[in-house]
């Protein structure tokens, strides 16, 4: 889960001086970058102690709270943007967390790996086993990724929730938006970056 060039795309969708909440902020790289380039006022949620130390070293505000348990302490509409990178597939109730993100923030940005990428399809087709790749390095029994989905799945959920997709970018394994990923994103895109809102 180190596809962090998606940060450049995320940055382009955030307005300067926004209040940003980053769920599962890891070592704080994104928030530190956003602080520097856009002067955002950010907080990250992270429960891994080693990652929290890294956040603090970067001067990033980090809150040791499990986003998968409860976000009720964050007030409605208290943030301009709620971000969650590469964690949707690891939470217990992805649909509920999207609701919570759009309650707390006006807009949200979500990135996740595409389980319908051709390599995953090929792996499953030829080996008949759960795909293991550089992007998804775990085996089925020890993976934190309990809710893998495809781009189509995600968009279907957005549609069911009547959410508006403001932007969508798909990147391949080289973190580029290649022609293949542009034309057939659900086949060639490895990571999706969605910018959504509940407003029309």
């Amino acid at each position, binding site marked *: 889960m180190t596809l962090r060039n998606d940060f450049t795309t995320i940055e382009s969708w955030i307005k300067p001086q926004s209040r940003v909440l980053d769920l599962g902020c890891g070592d704080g790289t994104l928030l530190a970058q956003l602080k520097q380039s856009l002067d955002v*006022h950010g*907080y990250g949620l992270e429960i891994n102690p080693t990652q929290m130390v890294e956040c603090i*070293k970067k001067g990033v505000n980090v809150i040791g709270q499990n986003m998968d348990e409860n976000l009720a302490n964050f007030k409605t509409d208290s943030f301009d943007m709620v971000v969650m990178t590469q964690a949707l597939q690891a939470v217990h109730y992805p649909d509920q967390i999207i609701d919570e993100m759009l309650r707390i923030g006006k807009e949200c940005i979500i990135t996740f790996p595409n389980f319908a990428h051709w390599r995953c399809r090929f792996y499953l087709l030829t080996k008949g086993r759960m795909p293991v790749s550089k992007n998804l390095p775990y085996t089925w029994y020890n993976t934190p990724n309990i809710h893998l989905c495809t781009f189509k799945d995600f968009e279907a959920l957005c549609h069911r929730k009547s959410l508006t997709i403001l932007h969508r970018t798909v990147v391949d394994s080289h973190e580029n938006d290649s022609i293949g990923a542009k034309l057939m994103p659900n086949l060639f895109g490895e990571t999706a970056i969605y910018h959504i809102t509940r407003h029309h």
Partner: protein
Amino acid sequence: MPNLDTNTALPATPQDSPGSVGIVVPQTVHFDTPLPLLCGKTLPEYDLIYETYGELNPNKSNAILVCHALSGNHHAAGRHAADDKRAGWWDACIGPGKVIDTNQFHIVSINNIGGCHGSTGPKSNNPDTGKPYGPDFPIVTAKDWVETQVRLADVLGIDQWAAVIGGSLGGMQALQWSIDHPERLRHAVVIAAAPVLSAQNIAFNEIARKAILSDPEFHGGHYYEKQSFPKTGLILARMLGHITYLSDEAMRDKFGRELREGKLKFDYNVEFQVESYLNYQGVQFSENFDANSYLLMTRALDYFDPAADYNSDLSAAVARAQCRFMLMSFTTDWRFAPARSQEIVDALIQAGKNVSYAEIDCPQGHDSFLLDIPQYTDLFRAYMDGIAQELSQ
């Protein structure tokens, strides 16, 4: 006396310990400008005793104020004499190369008024009568302590603390500082604290006070003149308090149901190791602490309420703050549980303040803040390193 640091391995002599500040000498400042107090009374004059560790830099920007908890005092690090059995109460964290690094910072540690280790308190002489204040010493609060600390900072020429740091009641003072004097600190480190005491917290304090007040040796607080001391009451108060500083898990690990002599004796004398330990701690404490001060310190806790002037809206209270905040709590602390720190964190986020918060997973309970626990130390150190880096920018 610290709350408890029996888990901390102490070096045999200060010379043995590269992380010790060594021998320290307390200093005292006398203030004769009357101090108006929250209770409406005025303290006409008072002494403040304090210690410092590490050098103050030329532009006086590296000063850190350490605030003590219920039973702490100014002696936070090092020893007063080479043969002192114990080092200062926060020696685990303060020293060269330690979390609060004396190679980087000039640390000021103060004994609050109302205490009994050198600053003016109930056992000091009342200048009006020439006798100890006893129960006539006015009840002071965290807010009042902050004012005395401001005055000390003025005397020391420190316009702005790099940080104000404390655990438990000490953390509450750091929070009070950020609200009352926002321009005078750059960071507040608030550890194992609460925004206000709960009914259960107050209930425990009330029993502790009752133990002292009902001791026949208490004499309405005028025991000094009668050459008596409510030792039994103070021991009971401390034993009760001590239980709240430890977690169930820590007590189980340390004592279990172990018996002192290996078999039941079917009487009411001390049989279980935990009984023996509590009695020992109580007796030790009663020899180093004044009962009137204990009453006063527990009341100061009960009265702590930084949101009181802001319609009990903590986020409105902290809206004044300008510093960055670091909060830490401990999973097994049931005196000031993590949820209490989270209340402060939520208020700070709501007010848009810079804050980091960690809940440290450890078994030791409330007193964890005094100990060298790796996860705690790592986060604390990273935060302090950041403060040190700002000094050179």
